């Protein structure tokens, strides 16, 4: 248990820095730790069996079949080697004691075997960076139903892709947010019949507002995607398992929410208003939950992500980055959490630098400048058909939106988002890159609404 115990590493053995979550944010953190001078042991822990890969292409090039999984690798083994990582794939972290910075890892798995500071599956660390991302939300009763999919991991995407390989299936996508919309576009491209169901009347309304959502709705309709507003009430199923004696009968069960699943293969989706949508395949794209369940230490606040301060610190020596982190954005003045690819990298880098600065302050011999608050200009993009949407700043949660459609047929538009009289975000579809970068400059820091509006008109020549 203690450093003086039998078989414990010698006192002078440096403790490792551990990064939990071997994806975009975790990899960026690990690389930054090395680049910033951490030459002690560095453990990167990921519960997926794959080398770090990129997620945005899962709902785009990979699902379409244009790319194979190796195109998604964030780094080749040749690029990883110089980092000297103790890389533990297929290894799940199951606990963290924040006060002692000690991780618990699932026993018996992990490649290569645990070495540094190993004490029965626990890893005492100099510092920890948590980058465990989010997991796809699902519906009760869906887990065991053939034909119902989620789309978060490479394995998810490959499973769905296999089912979409030949056209002509009836696909119902539950959830009309960004993921549902992108998947709808790909599935239409592959020749499937697609119905997109959401609570909001237009796609992505919560993220981009009603007007941009309306423009997207037009595009999806023009491509023959059926758009439905509604709430899912349950699945219709049959027993798809053919046995020697015909079809096997399943055990029907009813969950607390009234979801009924008697069979084992989905045949349709039922909406609360009684509508039945026949389906060969269902994609649940109903959002995600931060992967914080393993963080049971009561000193950590894990309500909607791991709560961090402006430096991305959740506790002394414990930092977080990427989709899982909810931190005090110093410019926007409230805790924010983003599920954006750009943020994963930037925050991974920031958390790594700040952790090193803290360790230097604790007397560990590393060159490190002061800790700096993490204050990025948020950025996300989405690709649907020929539409590329790009947004800077905060577009969700706006109390004011102004959308200028520059060319309806060519789907060129710009939208401004604001809160409390201040412009906080901007979104562009179909604008040349120079103009998009000019828009970023407009809301890089919050600006009074009127001023932002004038500058946007100038930047896009729409005034």
């Amino acid at each position, binding site marked *: 248990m203690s450093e003086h115990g039998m078989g414990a590493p010698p006192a002078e053995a440096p403790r490792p820095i551990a990064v939990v979550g071997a994806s975009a944010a975790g990899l*960026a953190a690990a*690389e*930054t730790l090395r*680049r910033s001078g951490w030459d002690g042991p560095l453990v990167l822990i990921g519960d997926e069996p794959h080398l770090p890969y*990129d997620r*945005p*292409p899962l709902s785009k090039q990979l699902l379409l079949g244009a790319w194979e999984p190796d*195109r998604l690798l*964030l*780094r080749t083994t040749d690029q990883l080697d110089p980092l000297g990582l103790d890389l533990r794939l297929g290894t799940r972290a199951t606990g963290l004691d924040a006060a002692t910075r000690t991780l618990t890892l699932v026993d018996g798995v992990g490649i290569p075997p645990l070495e540094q500071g190993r004490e029965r599956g626990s890893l005492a660390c100099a510092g920890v960076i948590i980058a465990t991302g989010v997991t796809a939300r699902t519906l009760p009763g869906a887990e065991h139903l053939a034909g119902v999919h989620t789309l978060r991991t490479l394995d998810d995407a490959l499973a769905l892709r296999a089912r979409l390989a030949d056209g002509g299936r009836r696909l119902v996508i539950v959830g009309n947010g960004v993921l549902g919309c992108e998947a709808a576009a790909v599935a239409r491209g592959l020749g499937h019949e697609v119905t997109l169901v959401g609570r909001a009347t237009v796609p992505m309304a919560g993220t981009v507002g009603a007007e941009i959502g309306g423009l997207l709705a037009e595009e999806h309709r023009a491509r023959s995607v059926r758009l439905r507003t509604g709430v899912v009430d349950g699945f219709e199923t049959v027993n798809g398992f053919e046995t020697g004696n015909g079809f096997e009968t399943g055990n029907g069960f009813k969950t607390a929410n009234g979801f009924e699943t008697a069979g084992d293969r989905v045949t349709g989706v039922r909406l609360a208003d009684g509508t039945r949508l026949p389906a060969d395949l269902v994609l649940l794209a109903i959002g995600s939950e931060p992967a914080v369940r393993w963080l049971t230490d009561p000193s950590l606040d894990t309500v909607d992500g791991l709560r961090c301060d402006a430096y991305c610190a959740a506790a002394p020596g414990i930092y977080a980055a990427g989709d899982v982190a909810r931190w005090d954005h110093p410019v926007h003045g409230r805790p924010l959490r983003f599920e954006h*690819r*750009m943020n994963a*990298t*930037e925050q991974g*880098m920031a958390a790594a630098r700040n952790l090193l600065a803290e360790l230097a302050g604790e007397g560990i011999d590393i060159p490190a400048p002061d800790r700096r608050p993490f204050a990025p200009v948020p*950025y996300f*993009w989405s*690709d649907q058909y020929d539409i*590329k949407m*790009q947004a800077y700043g905060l577009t969700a949660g706006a109390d004011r939106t102004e959308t200028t459609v520059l060319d309806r047929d060519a789907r060129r538009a710009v939208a401004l988002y604001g809160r409390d009289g201040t412009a906080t975000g901007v979104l562009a579809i179909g604008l*040349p*890159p*120079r103009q*998009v*970068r000019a828009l*970023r400059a407009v809301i890089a820091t919050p600006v009074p609404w009127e001023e932002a509006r004038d500058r946007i008109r100038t930047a896009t020549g729409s005034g």
Partner: protein
Amino acid sequence: MKITLDTDKCCAAGQCVLIAPEVFDQRDEDGIVVLLDDAPPAEQHDAVREAAAICPAAAIEIQA
């Protein structure tokens, strides 16, 4: 320093241009990255490394 771009992966985020405008640009039609200088001078190297690290599509590769 040698820079290789995978323009197929580029998602036109333009971060590289913000960080190293002497080295990267974007095509007007679709925003795909363009290399202005495939062997930039030493004073650009830090910016180029930063751009490669931050690119959200891992589209920029650097050889020493």
